[in-house]
């Protein structure tokens, strides 16, 4: 029987909230407020109950297919917080674009549910299902601007590639199942410690699963979908994808990599293979992300490539933690910091009212200094943080991934990463230069800082700077959360 409902409370609340929101959406009313309020309340309740449960030790529930741990609580809390931020910050954008439909809110909640379920899953089938629960609202939300063919296109592309990759993931699961006779991660791990037959089929399965998640985190060469989808999707949705989906996918990726006992000598060769795959993907992501980002004019595409290069840094952290489960905090810290600055950037971005229908371009930032010094400051903080400048959280995130991969002997890769940092730093400085040094272009967008989106941006900026100066609490906390058992 389910005797762990207390630790499952946040998920229960979230699911209940989804139902209520769905109910509210079904009842046709002119105003969309009820759905919005119910979504915010749901997320708040989830957030609070998560925070209350942060100290609860890890335990498996549902006969071992789901594991609830401080990590999952933390991640759900993070997702709920981001969800609240984006609901508040995106309100204005949705109204402006005529997208303010009740459906937006329950889709968002389902996405968050799927993403958080993904991080709790200890069974590949559950992983698959939560992946789909996360992805399906994501496809829908991407195409949420129904009347815009660009949005449709993005959604279709995302859908086709995501669907195919879902099948690839399932194929990997099937191979693993074939090799080990189970889809449970603990069983698989135990198998890998002892079993020695069917290693090839297992390896194939494992690689396929990794590839599927590499696609989700958009590591090169599986990154092609990301710029297109980012560009087509509504801005707050892009923000959600950049934060929630990426974080969930990365946490799961790290967990799935470690279902093999790399410290077992019989897996040594395979460990080398995995290491090489990750190394190459990290290098490619860094190169692709930082080289292409400087050619971009569209701000959202720019952020897409930026997120590809951030994936590269994250893979550096993964590489550093390979076989050393306890060192995964570099990835966690990076994800946390990245999430924070990305939320801020998207909150700022949803304030724009571009004149062209191709979305917000770099040129829309010209002369912002004259029009709004505060916005300029906020943008600058986020871009500096992206570039890893000191006194922003971006420095510490880079510190940890660099340190951890130097620790595992990846110094040349770190040097490459450092060089790529320089290149992408150029890309981040360019918009600052445009804001500060140029007069406004006549075609530049209007910027209207709504109350809530401004609050969100300021809060995120404050967080970025605070954690850049006083990262102790963050480090201490995230260090204490083990990811893998």
């Amino acid at each position, binding site marked *: 029987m389910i005797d762990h409902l207390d630790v499952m409370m946040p998920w229960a609340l979230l699911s209940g909230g989804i139902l209520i929101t769905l109910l509210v959406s079904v009842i046709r009313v002119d105003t969309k407020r009820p759905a919005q309020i119910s979504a915010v309340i749901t997320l708040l309740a989830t957030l609070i109950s998560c925070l209350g449960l942060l100290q609860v030790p890890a335990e498996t529930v549902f006969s071992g297919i789901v594991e609830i741990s401080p990590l999952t609580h933390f991640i759900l809390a993070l997702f709920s917080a981001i969800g609240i931020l984006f609901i508040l910050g995106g309100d204005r954008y949705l109204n402006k674009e005529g997208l303010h439909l009740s459906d937006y809110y329950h889709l968002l909640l389902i996405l968050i549910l799927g993403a958080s379920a993904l991080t709790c899953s200890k069974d590949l089938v559950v992983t698959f299902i939560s992946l789909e629960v996360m992805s399906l609202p994501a496809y829908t939300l991407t195409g949420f601007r129904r009347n815009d063919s660009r949005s449709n296109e993005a959604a279709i592309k995302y859908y086709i590639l995501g669907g195919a990759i879902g099948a690839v993931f399932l194929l990997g699961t099937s191979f693993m199942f074939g090799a080990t006779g189970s889809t449970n991660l603990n069983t698989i791990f135990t198998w890998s410690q002892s079993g020695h037959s069917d290693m090839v089929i297992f390896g194939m399965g494992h690689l396929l699963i990794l590839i599927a998640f590499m696609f989700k985190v958009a590591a090169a060469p599986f990154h092609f979908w990301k710029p297109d989808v980012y560009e087509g999707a509504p801005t707050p949705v892009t923000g959600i994808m950049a934060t929630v989906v990426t974080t969930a996918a990365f946490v799961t990726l790290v967990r799935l990599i470690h279902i093999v006992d790399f410290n077992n000598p019989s897996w040594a060769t395979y460990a080398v293979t995995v290491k090489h795959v990750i190394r190459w993907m990290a290098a490619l992501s860094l190169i692709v992300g930082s080289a292409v980002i400087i050619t971009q004019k569209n701000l959202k595409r720019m952020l897409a490539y930026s997120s590809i290069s951030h994936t590269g840094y994250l893979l550096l952290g993964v590489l550093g933690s390979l076989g050393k489960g306890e060192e995964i905090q570099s990835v966690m810290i990076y994800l946390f910091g990245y999430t924070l600055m990305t939320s801020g950037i998207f909150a700022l971005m949803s304030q724009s009212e571009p004149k062209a229908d191709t979305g917000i371009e770099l040129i829309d930032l010209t002369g912002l200094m004259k029009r709004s010094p505060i916005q300029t400051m906020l943008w600058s903080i986020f871009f500096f943080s992206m570039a890893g400048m000191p006194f922003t959280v971006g420095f510490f995130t880079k510190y940890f991934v660099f340190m951890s991969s130097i620790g595992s002997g990846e110094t040349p890769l770190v040097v490459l990463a450092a060089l790529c940092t320089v290149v992408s730093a150029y890309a981040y400085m360019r918009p*600052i*230069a445009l804001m500060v040094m140029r007069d406004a272009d006549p075609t530049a967008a209007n910027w209207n800082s709504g109350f809530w989106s401004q609050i969100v941006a300021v809060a995120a900026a404050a967080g970025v700077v605070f954690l850049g100066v006083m990262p102790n609490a963050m*480090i201490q906390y995230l260090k204490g959360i083990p990811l893998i058992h």
Partner: protein
Amino acid sequence: METSSSLSFLLTLPLIGVLIAWVMPKAVQRLYAIFGSALILALTVYETSGLLFAKSADLAKTFVVDQKLSWVPEIGFSLSLRLDSVSAWFVVLNTLVALVAFSLRGVWYRKYPRLFTSFGFFLVFALNAAFLSTDLITFYLAYEAVFIPMIFMVGIWGENQKAASVLRFFIMSFLGSILMLVSIFYLVYLNHEASGVYSAQITDLIHFTATQDPVKLCWPFMGFFAAFAIKVPLVPFHGWLKDVYTNAPMPGTIWMSGILSKLGVIGMIRFVLPLFPQTAAMHQGWLVTLAAISIVYAALLAIRSNDGKSLLAYSSISHLGFVMLGIFSLKSNGITAAILLSVGHTLVSALLFFLYHQVEERQAELNLESPHGLAPLYPVLFVSLFVSVLASVSLPGTLNFGGEFLVLLNAYPVSALCTILSGLGVILGAVYMLKFYQQLGLGSDAQKPTSSGVITKDIGAYDLVLVLMLLSVIVYGGLQPAMFLKGN
């Protein structure tokens, strides 16, 4: 040891200055900045007086202050500060340069004046942190933090080609510093492997690198070297310099040439040489050659410059080449001489840019191709300028002479050829500095501009006091360099 209050004080004071800038009315920002920085200067001199005016090196040692504030203990970051006779000079110079830069009148006090003042005080803070820091990570953070106000300063108040030049400046400096960062990480990691603790403390790392094979330390050495060679800059890492010096607003130029370049100097002295003594010795040959090439090459470029700012920019590279030559002599005497010279260079370049700005305020179009003959119109200004020019060509009796002479004296046993080559820089220095002065001041019979809005008076009383203060330090230092020669 002393109480450690003095060090945090050096860091917090400028930060308070940043905050106060935002409550001061816009109209009095210049006044506030001048008084604020003068106050900080006075307090800094007072705090460091034990080190600055100690009669001997041994006596100075008793005034050395160490302070260690825990910052991010989880990863071994600490705010380790050390005030010794080297950093004391740089800290004082830093505030002095701020005072000079704040004293300039210009567009920065009309457009976003608060931002300018607060950037200035932030620079003081970050530079102080960098000069005092003995923790590599803290140093790196401060070193990078300097960029942020600098970029905005050039960006907001700079001239025509500012965007491209500031980006180039940023990217090249960032390239160097990130390579340094990777080297720092590498050392910290190796030290962690060896000793089990995460520490970026320079003392810990020196103990560690002393036990290592110098060949193995080649790459980290290169990382550090790249950062500081770009920062100083040494030829051929100077590609960013000219444009950003010319396009920056004058206070920015003063900051960059006067004190930002010293970040590279102190980095070499504080970090590179103690960390990699043997590696540096292995590479000494080309290091010295590079310094000598910098001197001559930059001087050659300066000769051809027809823009005062870019001429002074190249002359700055040339003089810093001497500083580097002294450092790369790898002898404590040479390094001490290099410190002396960098003090001189800071004062003289700040002074030259300051005075050049004064000239520019009086005559807008200053092309050095043709003589302007302004000296008879503004005699006091031009006498000051001429004395500064003489200090810049390191005439005996000025601080720079002591520096250059002692640097070359100590570099000669290391490499006679490079010393002679550098000596050519002394001749070329005279060529371009005289050209600079002559084309501005002499050679034609100029009339005062009649159009309104242009300053037609000679140098103002306040500016004159400032100039005299700097000049007296330069001349006093030229006669009594012993004060600056207390070792490192």
